[in-house]
């Protein structure tokens, strides 16, 4: 592996980490707001209507429509979409902060929708904790007590929860601010408190609901790198909601792209950028710097005779951006090597095709 930048390394370890066994398994999930919401998913005719017709006919709004996906252990699963696409409703359905209308949700094979109140509290206390866009900190408590709040709710003794909270505070880089009130912190610092609060209970899954949307761009980048770092260190499963495509591509092992309550495409960042499922997605990813996302695995062609022996070697997960650098430095086509075997080569032409996006047009034509 050539020296990867931090995010890439995270993605690679994560790619090794995830097993196929899902943490969350969502099947045919619906959330309909409005009077007699139950009938909408039940009636195929109503279920097929688009948003405006549905509102006109029933007065209901379907925020989540027939969504299915698995979140695999150890991966960062990003749900991305524009505002109103239903992504925030979706993540709240996972721990039933919003009660789903129809469908099935399982966590580690256990049915979430049939849980009673105490079982559900257990789920929220120990297994899935959430970081919110607007932080949701208690203004009358110090940073330390906010971070310790989840443990307090679990009934952990005061001295123990403070000790554990202090560790997490240090982990997210808030040392020295333990005794401040949330109102005295900057937005980025407040979100670090929110993150620490979620981490303090050591949950199986972290849920992020647009956690960085309210932050300035520079602080947002810091926080994204913080999440990447945490994921690299702990390998914790994360579900991350965002409306920012770059954020999704940067953090996500897999991305579910939502529109009007439906998942229009689910795949790796490379699949989304390289093979958009429809015009909407294509439009969405048009301005993405493709060389940063596409890997040489996609860009390579079979080696001609002699090519397999010379030229710089790259792993198949390397980005086109890295390949361009190697090719430009050596002036030769680069080899894509896995386990000592040459899978293919990438030359100037292949790389330029990716950068120019002409490969995409061929796919469309084909």
């Amino acid at each position: 592996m050539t020296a990867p930048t931090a995010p890439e390394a995270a993605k690679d370890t994560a790619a090794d980490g995830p097993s196929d066994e899902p943490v969350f398994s969502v099947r045919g999930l619906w959330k309909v707001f409005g009077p007699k919401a139950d009938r909408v998913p039940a009636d195929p005719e109503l279920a097929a209507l688009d948003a405006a017709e549905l509102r006109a006919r029933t007065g209901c709004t379907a925020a989540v429509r027939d969504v299915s996906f698995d979140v695999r252990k150890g991966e960062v699963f990003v749900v991305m979409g524009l505002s109103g696409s239903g992504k925030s409703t979706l993540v709240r359905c996972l721990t039933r902060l919003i009660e789903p209308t129809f469908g099935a949700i399982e966590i580690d094979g256990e049915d979430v929708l049939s849980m009673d109140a105490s079982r559900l509290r257990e789920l929220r206390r120990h297994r899935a904790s959430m970081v919110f866009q607007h932080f949701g900190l208690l203004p009358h408590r110090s940073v330390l007590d906010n971070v310790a709040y989840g443990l307090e709710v679990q009934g952990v003794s005061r001295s123990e929860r403070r000790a554990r909270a202090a560790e997490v505070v240090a982990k997210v880089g808030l040392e020295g601010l333990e005794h401040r009130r949330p109102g005295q912190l900057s937005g980025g610092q407040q979100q670090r408190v929110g993150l620490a609060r979620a981490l303090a209970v050591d949950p199986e899954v972290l849920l992020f609901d647009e956690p960085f949307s309210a932050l300035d761009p520079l602080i947002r980048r810091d926080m994204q790198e913080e999440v990447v770092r945490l994921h690299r260190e702990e390998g914790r499963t994360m579900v991350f909601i965002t409306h920012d495509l770059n954020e999704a591509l940067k953090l996500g092992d897999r991305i579910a792209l939502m529109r009007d309550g439906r998942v229009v495409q689910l795949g790796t960042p490379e699949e989304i950028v390289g093979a958009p499922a429809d015009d909407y997605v294509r439009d969405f990813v048009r301005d993405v710097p493709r060389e940063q996302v596409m890997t040489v695995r996609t860009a390579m062609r079979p080696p001609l005779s002699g090519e397999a022996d010379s030229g710089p070697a790259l792993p198949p997960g390397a980005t086109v951006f890295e390949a361009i650098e190697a090719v430009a430095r050596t002036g030769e086509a680069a080899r894509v090597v896995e386990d000592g075997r040459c899978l293919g080569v990438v030359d100037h032409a292949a790389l330029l095709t990716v950068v120019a996006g002409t490969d995409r047009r061929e796919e469309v034509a084909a």
Partner: protein
Amino acid sequence: MSATATARPAPEKTAPAVTASRPSLAELLRHPLRGKLAVLALVAAVVVPTAALLWGTGAWPENLTADISAPLDDANRWVIDNRDTHPLFLYFLLHLSNTATDAVGSVYDVLDAMGWTGVLAAAVLFAWRAAGLGRPGAKVAATAFGAFAVCGLLGMWDATLLTLALMVVAVTLAALLGMAIGLLAGLSDRVDRALRPVLDTMQVLPAFAYLLPFVLVFGTGTPAALFCTVIYAAPPMARLTALGLRGADPSVLEAVTSLGTSPWQRLRTARLPLARKQMLLGLNQTIMMALSMVVIAALVGAGGLGEEVYSALSTVDVGKALAAGIPIVLIAVWLDRTTGAAGDRIGQGAPGAGLLHGRSAWALVAGGVAAAVAARFAVGAAWPEGWTVNISTPVNQAQAWVTDNLSSGVPLLGGTEVWSENFTLWILNPLRDGLMWLPWWSVLLLVAAIAWLVGSWVSALTATAAMSLIGVLGVWTKSLDTLSQVLAALVVTLILGVAAGVLCARAGRLERWLRPLLDAMQTMPQFVYLIPVVALFGVTRTSAIIAAVVYALPAVVRITAQGVREVDPAAMEAARSLGASTRQQLLQVQLPLARPALRLAVNQGVVLVLAVVVVGGLVGGGALGYDVVKGLSRGEMGLGMTAGVAIVCLGLVLDRVTQSARKRG
């Protein structure tokens, strides 16, 4: 009809008067309003001739009245006869009233035992602790010191202690009761829906109307005073507790829920702490209302400062009334500043470290009070005899001079008594006669129509029912008399208040200068306003009206100023960029956009004016207020209660007629 022409438009036109000058916003409202007006015209065309034929003109017909005063007198007699024998009294009410008397008595004993040094130290240190340790704390502590020192200097120390004792018990009970109700309403939507109209209504009823039922049950004395104070003062606490619980930041509550909190944990760790600021505001309002009521409750035997004012007023001894009135004002200011400052501190504070925080500060307070209590053995428990100033003689001399020199014969200006006579002759009397000249059914129709136009058909129904009840009770004429005073006072209040409010909003310096004055005026109990008015204008209907205007003015000025100032700055900027003159900005942008505030000002104004006009029965206001006073002082329950119910009805009518549907919905 000329008289009614001045009278009627008051509630009807003050708010919509603004509408006329503006096309844009009116577009929104014009359609429903025009529809309603058309319907009204149609109904009037049918009903008015029919009613005129059927019932003719004149006051409420005799045969439609029901006398409730005789049964009430019987009930009163029964209560008096059975007070010592009936189980209801023996096992329930007697316990209540004994406990009340004991509680107030023991608090008084404690205050008395602390000695004046102890009470003074406790008041100062408590204020200092509640308001924080910096400059604001020092200021509030100085206010506390000044207030109590003046109480002593004016020779009112003992009366002050008695009032304080009653306040301590009443506020504690009212706050607990209000908090309990507020918790229920904050947590249950059904309770909230059921309680809100009740609390809303309780807040518009004049304090005077609360007295009689309690006298009927408990007789005059401390228990009646205490319980009516508790009931009168509890609603703001209940409302604001519920509001605080409901208004908690939903994103915080969601986050707290997402961590798996149980409902009880949510309440204890998030909802209640988040509602703290609102609850303190509620406590502040409860305290101010309790003080106002404790003073008025002198009429039912509360004793203390109110008693001093009351007995002085009944002999028109202005000097003595002032000597008792000043301590009331000072206590009001002390209580308001202390609780207000405590409220301000919430949420802005870094919990700093150091000696003077948390427990150590409270220990310091306790230590200081203990030291001061010890000091009383050196200087004596009672306020030193020699340290009093008699202000009543000089004040009475000044008042005599005013009466001699200013009441009449002032060149050009006339004089206070001349003004008062002219006001009565040219405004009050025609207004009253006009109202009485109106056929009774037309008054009902007018009330219904206005309430429907301004609000909804529900408010129209309520208002009409309340107005009819007044007729049924047989106090139609007296109520119209009171109504005429309210209307006259309201018009004056609105003209002065809206003008001052607009000026305040446009001239920041004026506002800064006026604000402390308005603050102080809003905290004073209604009773106090009667004192200077009687000094200047004597015992007439005009005095009551002037007191009402002065009492209601601060609220109207403040609401108007706030409404005008909070007009969307973007709209103002747009108007300025289009080159609108100051006048155009005011008439075309600020006033129209401030309409909700103006409407609120009318509503508040009418409620406050009514409260004082009724209390004005003590100083020559006559009509319903006087009946209540007479009923209380002569033990004529029937007369007093009937007037009390009529006041309640009048309050309902006036509130519904001025309260827009949007605010209620």
